[in-house]
């Protein structure tokens, strides 16, 4: 019962977040950097430039996020196995 309440609360809080950002006229779950710093910078008369390589086009950003995520994960997993090998006593039994 209590677990159900927690799950409902979490679902509600995310839904509220999404609806709230929509109500404020922002894109749902927009990143804090872009949408926000741009607004703020414009108030101060500064215009953010495009990145050197603008990867924020279509699914290109998904490609780079996924590629870098999987590479970093691979490195982390490989070195984790090297530094923390599974205890052999447990496996032997």
């Amino acid at each position, binding site marked *: 019962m*209590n677990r159900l309440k927690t799950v409902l*609360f*979490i679902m509600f*809080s*995310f839904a*509220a*977040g*999404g*609806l*709230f*950002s*929509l109500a*404020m006229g*922002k894109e*749902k*779950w*927009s*990143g*804090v*950097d*872009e*949408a*926000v*710093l*741009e*607004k*703020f*910078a414009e108030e*101060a008369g*500064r*215009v*953010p*430039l495009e*990145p*050197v*390589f*603008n*990867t*924020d086009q279509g699914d290109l*950003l998904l490609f*780079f*996020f996924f590629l*870098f*995520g999987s590479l*970093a*994960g691979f*490195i*982390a997993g490989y*070195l*984790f196995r*090297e*530094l*923390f090998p599974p205890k052999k006593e447990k496996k032997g039994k």
Partner: protein
Amino acid sequence: MEAVAIRMNISLRFVFAFLFFVGAFYTDAFAMHIADGILPAGWCAFWWVVVLPFIVAGISKIKNESKKDKTFKPFIGLIGAAAFIISCLPVPVPFAGVTSHPVGVGIAAIILGPLIAVVIASVTLTLQALFLAHGGLGTLGADIFSMGVVGGFLGYGIFVAVRRLGFSWVTAAFLAGLLSDWGTYASTSALLTLALHEVDSLLPMFASLVIAFSPTQIPLGIMEGFISAFAIRFIKNRMPEFSLGAMKGKL
């Protein structure tokens, strides 16, 4: 007892919910990635100059330490990759309705020391600026200052101080993770205020920035505290002889 705990739990939730709503209403949230074009060129150059000695010292520290200890290099790789993953994740924050990034630099500073944390933050932020459309190359110095120098040294200092005061590894790691996150975002706010304030509104602008990022960074900072505490407990359990960074010697 249980009823009281549940009631406290519920009221805590409403306090948080209220904070998020107020914060999100006040203005949008901010993050540690300042894009090119936002800081004037003078400030970009200034932060590059500030940050460069830390990077040089960090690299030479990596060279020296890796000669002494064979597990040092794989640990840099593991912690570097973990910090990169943590700081890239655009975590959706409930109630705030936006995504924001943890920093991951506190844990790197505890395990490897603050100078190497600066190097890890530099590599991470450079990759993000080049390929992930987060931050810029001119503003990289400022971003490295906030995340690497402030986040790293704050995390390291807090960990050492809390340990010296006699608290547990886990408590020290939690506070280091929490405050390195908040310190990073406070530093970004300060940088922006210094560069962009109108003459008479230094403190109000900083305060409005701090309020603006509290809806995302209060929960994310707590999350980073838990991640950091979990990682340190794991290392102490699995590798009791571990002795690098802030975990060296008697600490």
